[in-house]
């Protein structure tokens, strides 16, 4: 009896271990088939960090830069716009953030006059139109989201502020964009 039990356990072990090895092998074959859907090497290379010269953008103007297939807005705000944005800090917003948090720092000082945001609406990814909407910031024509001049969502279906990309000031008049972020 006992020898049969030992025999059975051995057999069970072989079945089980064969099954496990087979399952791991099968699962590891699935990965390449899924991974091929992701961004390829060419796409990733084209998304290398980029430097932007800000000295070419006069006050009150903005540029749109295409990076990683999506637009990035660089806005040079006027004094008036800065005042409005600061004053609005106390208003209620869907995704509250003080104006001072919307720009990066250089030498420990927030460069408030520069707003750099990813130019796709946090609702469903349309491109907002500059200098329009109820807050004279950006307005998304697809489903009616209004952003203020700091790119904060003020009205409409978008859940989040326009997303700040990963960037840093190299000098007072140049930035380096190193990555995009997701809205969530």
């Amino acid at each position, binding site marked *: 009896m006992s020898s049969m039990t030992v025999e059975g356990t051995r057999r069970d072990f072989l079945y089980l271990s064969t099954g496990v090895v087979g399952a791991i092998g099968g699962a590891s074959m699935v990965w390449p088939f*899924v991974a091929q*859907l*992701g*961004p*390829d090497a060419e*796409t990733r290379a084209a*998304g290398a960090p980029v430097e932007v010269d800000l000295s070419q953008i006069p006050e009150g103007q903005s540029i*749109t830069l*295409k990076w*990683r*297939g*999506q*637009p990035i807005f660089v806005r040079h705000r006027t004094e008036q716009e800065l005042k409005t944005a600061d004053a609005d800090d106390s208003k209620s917003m869907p995704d509250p953030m003080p104006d001072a948090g919307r720009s990066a720092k250089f030498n420990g000082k927030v460069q408030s006059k520069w707003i750099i945001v990813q130019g*796709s609406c946090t*609702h*469903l*990814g*349309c*491109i*907002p*139109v500059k200098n329009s909407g109820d807050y004279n910031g950006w307005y*998304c*024509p*697809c*489903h*009616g989201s209004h952003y203020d001049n700091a790119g904060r969502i003020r009205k409409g*279906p*978008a*859940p989040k502020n326009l997303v700040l990309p990963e960037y840093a000031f190299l000098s007072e008049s140049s930035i380096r964009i190193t990555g*995009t972020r*997701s*809205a*969530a």
Partner: protein
Amino acid sequence: MQGHSTYVPKSSAAKWFEARLPIIGLMHSSFVSYPTPKNLNYFWTFGGILMVMLMSQIITGIMLAMHYTPHVDHAFASVEHIMRDVNFGWLIRYLHMNGAHMFFFAVYLHIFRGMFYGSYKAPREVLWILGVVIFLLMMATAFMGYVLPWGQMSLWGAVVITNLFSAIPLVGQTIVEFLWGGYAVDNPTLNRFFSLHYLLPFMIFGVVILHVWALHVVGQNNPTGVEVKNLSKDTVPFTPYATVKDAFAMVCFFIFFLFFVFYQPNQLGHADNYIMADSLKTPAHIVPEWYFLPFYAILRSVPDKLGGVMAMGGAVVILAFLPWLDTSKIRSGSFRPAFKIFFFVFVVVTVLLGWVGSQDTGAPVLKFGENTVLTMVGFGQILTIYYFAHFLIILPMLGLFERPLALPASIADSVLGGGHGMPIGAAASPEIKG
């Protein structure tokens, strides 16, 4: 209802073949001797019409794929090349493009037919659910096909729809990058959509075979909803009766279809799709094709992104639960006086949702003096609530409170006027009975 084959192979070659692969017998029992209820009205012809539309889409699609280039730099130009240079390219493309509209038009009539006559009720639940699966596959196919010409609506439709997946908590953004194959809708996205757009119709074809198989196991429903009791009295053979009727309906449908192809080929589309895709410029109004508008309106009605996506998905998926949400034992709406009213209200609500989906969200619907009492969003919200209430509240309650009319004893009685409860005149021409 299987096994009614009266096929007897005559030649020795046919006998030899039938003994080895009985496919001729299968075709014969499915499309020749198959018993169909004798009271079917013209709403029952859309199954056959849809089958023909699927074949038409596959054939024209294969031909288009021979001339189309799935690359962001060439796609738009290759479509124009099909329109201008390829022999009869304009015809093939217009057939394919308008065929998609006709496909949805027919499928909506087919779905509403099933909803009115209770075709989803036992024992046809699996048949119905397979239909919902086909509908979902159709939506995915149509969406990806619309992206291929790489016009402005193609691109921005793709941006909006793929971004819906970013609403999924935690993994949303990763999923979207894997859908795109990059950081935005771009060439990899176009390539894979082309691949899938070519694949999915064949998957639809597979599910259609299951759908027809399930249909032939449980048998067709009919306008009275009364099951077939006596094959010789209640049914007629598929050929010639249903074949000829389906063929006639198909000719009428094709006149309608070809009117668009030859006289109004771009009427159902959006002019902006003749502008090449520009990833830095969103069109002023992104509007999906008409057949997605009710679902688009539901998406826009919910102020929360994830909530909107779930409501939109739920609006389609809820159809699969219809067999259990409708508690009435009576199948046909013809014998349910209260249901009949709610059914037509539901049809009107879905059409209105479609209209709301095509309008600007802030547009006023109702004005009282200078004040806007109801905006398009508000109206869409009311309609969305009604849409779900129809399935979740009205249908379950109706079955409990409604007093149905008396059913005819059999299909034969309803046709010949021998039954109780159905006036003779009404039964004699069931196709105009609604």
